[in-house]
Structure formats: C-alpha cells, structure tokens
C-alpha cells in the first residue's frame, strides 16, 4: 500500500513571518480604532502615528486594501493593526 504523496504539505515546515492575526477592535465613525481586546479584556487606545493605506494586487484581480494604524493601548506597548477594507475585519501585524 502506497501513501498519498500528493497530500497537503505540513504547515509546520514553511510558514510566513509576520502573518496577521485576527483581533477584535471597536472603531469610531472615522474608522480610527478606539478600543481593542487583548488577553480577554478591552483596552482604550490612542493613535501614535498617522494612519497609512496600502492598496495592492488590484491589477491581478485580487485587490487588497488595508488601512494601517499604529496604536498604543493605555497600559501596554504600541502595536500595529490594520482594517481589511474589503471585509471590515481587523488584524494585528508586526510591520
């Protein structure tokens, strides 16, 4: 009996560095994050840098639109988050 050599590769062998991780964020009407959930608790945040937008791959038919924010929770180190403008979901990412 021969094993299936075309099976899915083991994801442990190769993985992306700086993969985004889903995050719960509450944003204001202007889209700027106001609160985020870290370690099960909600924290107020403030912007520490002007937001920046990235639009990529629109020429490939798989457009990617993200609005990045560098924010700092009231009692924690700053972090980078982005909002996927297509789905409205928030992610945390090392930039």
């Amino acid at each position, binding site marked *: *009996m021969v094993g299936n050599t075309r*099976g899915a590769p083991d994801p442990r062998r*190769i*993985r*992306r*560095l700086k993969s*985004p991780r*889903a995050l719960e964020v509450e944003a204001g009407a202007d889209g700027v994050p106001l609160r985020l959930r870290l370690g099960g608790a909600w924290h107020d945040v403030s912007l520490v840098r002007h937001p920046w937008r990235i639009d990529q791959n629109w020429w490939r038919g798989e457009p990617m639109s993200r609005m990045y924010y560098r924010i700092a929770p009231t009692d924690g180190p700053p972090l980078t988050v982005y909002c996927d403008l297509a789905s409205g*979901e928030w992610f945390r990412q090392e930039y």
Partner: protein
Amino acid sequence: MRIAFVSIPRFPCAVAVQRDPALARRPLIVGDAEQPKRVLDCSASASAEGVRRGMTVRQALGSCPEAVIVPPDPVLYRGKWESILDALGGVSPEVEYEELGRAYINVSGLGSHCRGEEALAAHVVETVRAASGLDVCVGLANGKFPAFAAAIASSRSGLVVPAGGEGAFLSPLDVELLPVEPEIIFRLRLFGIETIGEVAALSVQELQSQFGFAGKRVWQLANGIDAEPLRPRPLEEKVEASLGFEAPVAGVDVIVAAAKQLLSRLRLSLRGRAAREMALQAELATGRGWERRIVMREAVSESERLAFVLRSSLQNAPPPNAVRSLSLRLSGLAGETGKQLSLGKRGRLQRQLEEATRQLKVRYGYSPIYHCVDVEPWSVIPEERQILVESDA
C-alpha cells in the same frame, strides 16, 4: 478524501477498567492523587453525577461521593495507544494521532480491498479490538468532521456515510457536535438553533455577519464540508525487546544488566545502525507503568555506550518501585557517520547546530528551529517579505 475516525471514548477509564474489571461496577474518576489534583477522565456514570474533566478531585467527590479515584498511568495509556496506532498503520499508512483515544485514518480507495466500506469499517473495529481489547467507535465519511460525527452515532460495527450524503446525515444532529468555539454554540442556541440542519439552512453571509471569520467554517461544517487535511504521524522505524522477571527486582545495577541483555538482543535488528533515542519502559510491582526516555546528542550504536547513558540516567532518577518487566525501544535509527574535523570555528558551530536540530527533531517529531528566507523583501505587505523554513539539518 475518505476518512475514518477511530474513537475510544473515555480512554483512560477504559484502560483502567480493563486492568481491574471490578472498577466497572462503580463511578470511576481518573485523577491525580497529588498536585494538581484535577480530574483527567471519568466514567459515564460519574459524568451523569456532574463530574467533568478539569474540575478538582475535591469538587468531583462533592458531586459524586461514591466514586473510586484511580491515579493516572500515562505510560500505560501511551503504550496501549501506540499499539493501536501501529495496528491502524496496517490498515492505512496515513494515520493522524489527534489525542489519546482519537485518531483519523485515510481510507481513500481501501473500500474495494474489503468488499465495500461497511466491511472496511468493521475491519477497522476488529483491528482495534484485536490490538487493545477495548470497545471502539468508527465513523467513515468524506472529511474529518463528518467522520467524527459518524463515529459518535455509530453502532458496534462502525457507521459509513456515503459520499455526498454528509449534509443529510449531519442535519438531525445536535449543534453541540460542531467543532467550533463554545461561544458560537451558545449563541446559536440563543437564536433557537438546535440542529446542524438548521445551521446549514442559513446562508454563509448570515453566519459571517454573526460570527465573522468563523461563520464560513460553521456553514461549511454544517453542510458536511471539511477540507482540513489529514496530518499523518511520521512513519518511524524502531526496534524493541522486552523481558519479564520471575520476581520484582530493584536497583540500578540489576536494571542496567537487564537492559544490556535487551541491547544484545537488539543488535541483530539494528543491522549496524545507530540509535538517537532510547526509551526504557517498566511495569512496576504496583502495576503502574514507568518510562525513561533519553534523546542522545548524536546517534549511538555501541551497546556499551548506550548502557553507560542509561546507567547515568537511572542513577539520577531510578524507578520508584521494584520492576516486574522491562522493555527497551531504540528509535531515530540512522547510519553511523564519520566526523570531519575542521580547523575553522564556523564549521564546528555549523555542525553543532545541525546536530542540535536533529536531536530536537527526534524529540518533538519536527524541527522547532527555522531559518528566515527573504521572498519579497521590498513588498509593502509585511507577510509577503519573508518566510520561515523548517531547518532540516
């Protein structure tokens, strides 16, 4: 992919009852007698009294005062489960070990070898019973979740869900079965949704608007679509020998002498190869299992050296009781390699790193050391710049 899910419910309890059938008559709790005093597993009768895994033994006894508490025996559980996995490896080479008592096997195309999938499921049931003597549930379907659900609903000979019939099969089952966050199940119930069929009747958009990311997966699972790949355990060659004593023996010298005898028996099976890992298992006079696992920095083939490593390890922490039987397993087999000495420090460091990587790979089954490779370092999208590649050494 046709997948069979093999489940031995309440595995630690089943093994404890098999060892002492008298335990079957009373509610049973398998829990640590010492720290951290938590319930590892409980019998169905104890569960009916409110005992749950993870609660403290004190709480469990409050719910079920007549329960018998048995200390866990991880060595015995692991040994039993390994023998079951080895037997399943005879059915299909792709076996995924999920946890004790739960495994998935890839059975695509095997139905024709057994005159149909029903016969194949029955063959898997018989294989596990012959290897362990334990009762088993087997479900066979397309995808992991439908196979899991089929096993839960299976009879003694297993249950087969025909390809394409997953959605209809899952429809009447309780939403509790869905392998998703408990919070999602809780919210589905708040909406008055009790069966998987009711979830399947909703649209992807409706579920995504409620549960975000997880909504799509909930919809797919409810419709019997589970594309999660099978992750087979690596096939590893190992050689093993065991011996029993007429009367329980104690003392490092006696155990090392017995281990030397086992090593000499294994010499033929080794065929000149060296072993990177050595595991000494014993059945203690108390009936409990004991194990010492040693991962060596480099593969070793000489019996004397293996015995020396074993003696050093046993002197630090000998078995806590007299030993009734002993078993020695050598794995991580490799041909012996010569060492080219280098004048440069860099070459030596590189070799040390490679050696350490191989050692970690044997210990964990994969290499936890990665090297970073630039893919598109100029990209504005962070995750496209670099990847981590497992270091194979």
